[in-house]
C-alpha cells in the first residue's frame, strides 16, 4: 500500500457512488427503534421501483438526533426524515421518483437539517458519522481516511508528531483533561524494549454514549489515531478496550481491524515504512472502575479490575510493567484531523485553555435527545436551549448533570457558564466523558444524589476502605434524609465523610464519588433543608435510635 493506491481506492469509491444516496442510520439508538427493518424496506422499495441504477441505500453511523430515530437522510438534496417506520419507508422512495409534488401525507415526518441542533454543531470527531458506511474501509478512505497516517509516517518524525499534538493543545477527552501531548512525550521518552498503546473505550458513565457512537459510526478513525500515536511513542502493540455492553461497537471494530490488516494499514511495514503496529480488542465485563487507567490495565492482564496507587504512572510503568499510553476513544478520534489539518487549525477552535470541540450525549428531560459536538466555550444555555430545544411539555429546566457519577449538577442559574475544563471545575462539576443529563422541576436533587451514591457503592471495587465503606455510609445517610429521619448532625457527618473520601480514596472513583452529593448540597440546599424540616414538623418527639445497627435488630 502506498499513497497512489490509497488515492485510487478513494477515487474508485467515489466513482461507484450513485447519484442519489439514501443514508439510513444503523447505529445502536436507531437499531433499537427498528432501524434495520427500515433499511431493509428501503432496499426492497428501491429494487421494486427499478431504481438500483440511480439510487443506493447505505447504512451509516449515528445521524445524532437519537430521539427522532430511526432517521433517514437523502443525498444530495439533504432531506431528513424522522421516526421512519417500515410502513412509511416505501413512500420515501416513491417521493424520489415522483415527477410532481410528493404525497406528503404518506411520508414520514420531515426534519429540518438547518435547525440549530444541527447548524450549531461543529463536527470534527463526528465529521464522518452518519455519512460513511462504518463497515467498509473504502468509505472511510474516500472521506480522506488514512492520509494522516501516511503523512505522519512519511513526512514527520515521531518527535514532530508529538510536537504537533502538543501544539494543538488537545486535552484528554476521558474526563480529567490532561494534556495529550505531554502524555505522549512522557511515553516517547521512556526507554523500554516494548511499549503499548491502549484505547479506553470503557464508557461506563450512565447517560454517556459518545464513545459508543464513534466506535459504531467511524471505527477506522480510532485505528488511525491509535496507529499515529503508536508511531509517535514507539509502540508496536495496541489494545482497544471496549465495554462488553456494546456488542455492535465491538463487531464493527473487529471488522475495521480485519479490513485495515488486509490493506496493509495495520500489521507489518505499514505504508511500506519500517513501522509495525497491531491492535487487539479486549472486551470489558461490566465494571465501572475499569474506566480508571490502572484498573483497566489490570483487566487487560486478565485480573480483577482494581486500581493501584500512582505514581508510577502508566506512561512509565503500565501493562506488564512497560510504558503504556492510554487515551480515550474521543481523544484518538481527534488525532487524524490534527495531523491532516495542522495544529494551528485545531488550536484556533475553542477557548484559551480548552481547544477543539467536545461531543456531548444530551439526554434526560429535553426535546432533542442525541449527540452534539460543539466548540469548547459554548455556554450551557446554548446547548440546552438552542441545540436541545429546551424542556418538553412546558416544564422548566432545573439543572444539568455533567460528568456522571464523578460530576455534579449545575443549576439553571449558572447556565451562562462556558463549557470548558476549568469553568466546569469551578462550578463544582467536571467536563467528564460527555454525558449531559437535563433535569426539570419534577426531579428531586436529593434523589439524584442518592442515585449516584448507590451507583458508586455498587461499583466500588472494594480495594480501599474510604471508598468501600464511605459510599455505603453516605448512601445510608442519604436514604435517611430522603425518608425524613435525618438531623442536622447527620448533615454534618455527611459533609465530613465527603471530605474524607475525597482526600483519602485510592482512585478517581472514590475521590469523585461525593461530587454529585456536594454539588446538589451546594446549589439546592433548600431541598435537603425541606426534608429535615419535615421531620421536625411531623415527628417532633421522635428520638433517633443511636444504637449500632446490630443491636437494633
Amino acid at each position, binding site marked *: 500500500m502506498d499513497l497512489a493506491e490509497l488515492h485510487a481506492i478513494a477515487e474508485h469509491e467515489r466513482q461507484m457512488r450513485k447519484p442519489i444516496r439514501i443514508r439510513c442510520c444503523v447505529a445502536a439508538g436507531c437499531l*433499537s427503534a427498528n432501524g434495520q427493518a427500515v433499511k431493509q424496506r428501503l432496499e426492497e422499495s428501491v429494487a421494486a421501483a427499478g431504481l438500483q441504477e440511480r439510487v443506493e441505500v447505505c447504512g451509516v453511523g449515528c445521524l445524532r438526533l437519537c430521539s427522532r430515530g430511526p432517521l433517514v437522510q437523502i443525498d444530495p438534496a439533504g432531506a431528513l426524515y424522522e421516526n421512519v417506520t417500515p410502513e412509511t419507508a416505501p413512500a420515501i422512495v416513491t417521493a424520489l421518483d415522483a415527477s410532481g409534488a410528493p404525497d406528503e401525507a404518506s411520508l414520514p415526518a420531515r426534519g429540518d437539517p438547518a435547525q440549530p441542533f444541527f447548524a450549531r454543531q461543529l463536527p470534527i470527531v463526528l465529521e464522518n458519522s452518519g455519512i460513511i458506511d462504518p463497515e467498509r474501509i473504502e468509505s472511510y478512505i474516500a472521506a480522506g481516511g488514512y492520509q494522516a497516517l501516511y503523512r505522519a509516517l512519511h513526512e514527520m518524525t515521531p518527535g514532530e508528531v508529538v510536537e504537533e499534538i502538543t501544539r494543538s493543545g488537545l486535552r484528554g477527552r476521558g474526563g480529567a483533561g490532561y494534556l495529550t501531548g505531554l502524555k505522549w512525550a512522557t511515553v516517547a521518552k521512556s526507554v523500554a524494549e516494548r511499549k503499548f498503546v491502549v484505547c479506553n473505550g470503557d464508557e461506563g458513565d450512565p447517560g*454517556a454514549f459518545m464513545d*459508543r457512537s464513534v466506535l459504531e459510526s467511524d471505527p477506522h478513525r480510532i485505528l488511525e489515531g491509535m496507529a499515529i500515536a503508536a508511531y509517535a511513542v514507539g509502540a508496536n502493540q495496541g489494545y482497544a478496550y471496549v465495554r462488553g455492553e456494546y456488542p455492535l461497537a465491538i463487531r464493527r471494530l473487529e471488522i475495521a481491524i480485519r479490513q485495515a490488516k488486509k490493506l496493509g494499514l495495520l500489521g507489518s511495514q505499514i505504508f511500506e515504512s519500517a513501522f509495525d503496529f497491531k491492535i487487539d480488542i479486549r472486551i470489558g*465485563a461490566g*465494571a465501572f472502575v475499569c474506566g480508571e487507567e490502572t484498573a483497566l490495565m489490570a483487566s487487560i492482564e*486478565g485480573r480483577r479490575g482494581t486500581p493501584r496507587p500512582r505514581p508510577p504512572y502508566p506512561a512509565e510503568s503500565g501493562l506488564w510493567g512497560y510504558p503504556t499510553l492510554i487515551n480515550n476513544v474521543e481523544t484518538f478520534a481527534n488525532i487524524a484531523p490534527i495531523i491532516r489539518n495542522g495544529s494551528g487549525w485545531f488550536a484556533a477552535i475553542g477557548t484559551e485553555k480548552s481547544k477543539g470541540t467536545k461531543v456531548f450525549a444530551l*439526554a434526560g*428531560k429535553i426535546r432533542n*435527545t442525541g449527540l452534539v459536538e460543539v466548540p469548547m466555550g459554548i455556554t450551557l444555555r446554548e446547548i440546552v436551549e438552542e441545540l436541545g430545544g429546551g424542556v418538553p411539555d412546558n416544564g422548566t429546566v432545573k439543572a444539568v448533570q455533567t460528568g456522571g457519577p464523578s460530576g455534579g449538577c449545575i443549576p439553571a442559574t449558572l447556565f451562562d457558564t462556558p463549557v470548558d475544563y476549568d469553568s466546569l471545575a469551578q462550578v463544582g462539576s467536571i467536563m467528564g466523558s460527555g454525558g449531559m443529563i437535563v433535569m426539570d422541576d419534577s426531579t428531586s436533587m436529593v434523589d439524584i444524589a442518592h442515585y449516584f451514591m448507590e451507583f458508586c457503592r455498587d461499583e466500588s471495587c472494594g480495594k480501599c476502605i474510604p471508598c468501600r465503606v464511605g459510599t455505603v455510609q453516605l448512601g445510608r445517610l442519604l436514604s435517611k434524609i430522603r425518608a425524613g429521619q435525618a438531623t442536622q448532625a447527620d448533615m454534618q457527618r455527611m459533609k465530613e465523610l465527603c471530605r474524607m473520601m475525597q482526600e483519602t480514596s485510592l482512585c478517581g472513583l472514590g475521590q469523585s464519588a461525593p461530587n454529585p452529593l456536594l454539588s446538589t448540597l451546594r446549589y439546592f440546599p433548600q431541598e435537603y433543608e425541606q426534608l429535615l424540616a419535615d421531620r421536625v414538623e411531623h415527628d417532633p418527639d421522635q428520638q433517633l435510635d443511636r444504637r449500632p445497627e446490630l443491636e437494633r435488630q
Partner: protein
Amino acid sequence: MPSATLKPNANATTHPSGDNRFKILEATMKRQQYQPDALIEVLHKAQELFGYLSIGLLLHIAHSLKLPPSRVYGVATFYHFFSLAPQGEHTCAVCLGTACYVKGAATLLAAVEHAAGVKAGATTPDKRLSLLTARCLGACGIAPAVVFDGTVAGHQTTEALLEHVKGWFENGSG
C-alpha cells in the same frame, strides 16, 4: 492425508462428559496459547457457550490455564457480566442509566419487581423469568428503555412493561 492436519480441533482434548461445547472452549484457550492473561476472554466464551459459569466449569478453566481456582473465582465474581447461576427462561433488564432514571425507570423496576415477586438480580422460583438491571444501554434517546430477551424496547410505561412480562407468565414458554 493433508486434510487431517488442517482440522483445528484435531488434537483438542475432549472433556470426560463428552459435551461438545468443551471442545469449542478448548479451541479458544488454545488460540490464546493458554495464557493466563486471556482469562477474561476465556470466561466470556465459556459464558456464551454454557449460559453461566458453574463452579465445575471455573475449575476446568483454572486447570487449563494453570491458574489457582481462587484467582479464576475472584475474576468471575468481580465482573458484573459473569453469572454464576443459571438464568431463567426469559430475561427482563430495566435500564437504570441516568437518562432512564430521570424518566422514571425506578418506578418501572418497582412495578415489575412487585409483579414478578422477586428482586432485581434474582430469578423466579419457577425459573421462568430473570429480572435484571442494566447500568446504561446507551439508548438514552428512547428512555426509559427495557431489554426483553435481548431486544431493546424504548419509551416504556409501567402498563406496557407489565403486559409484556405477564404475557410470559400466562403463555408458558414462548
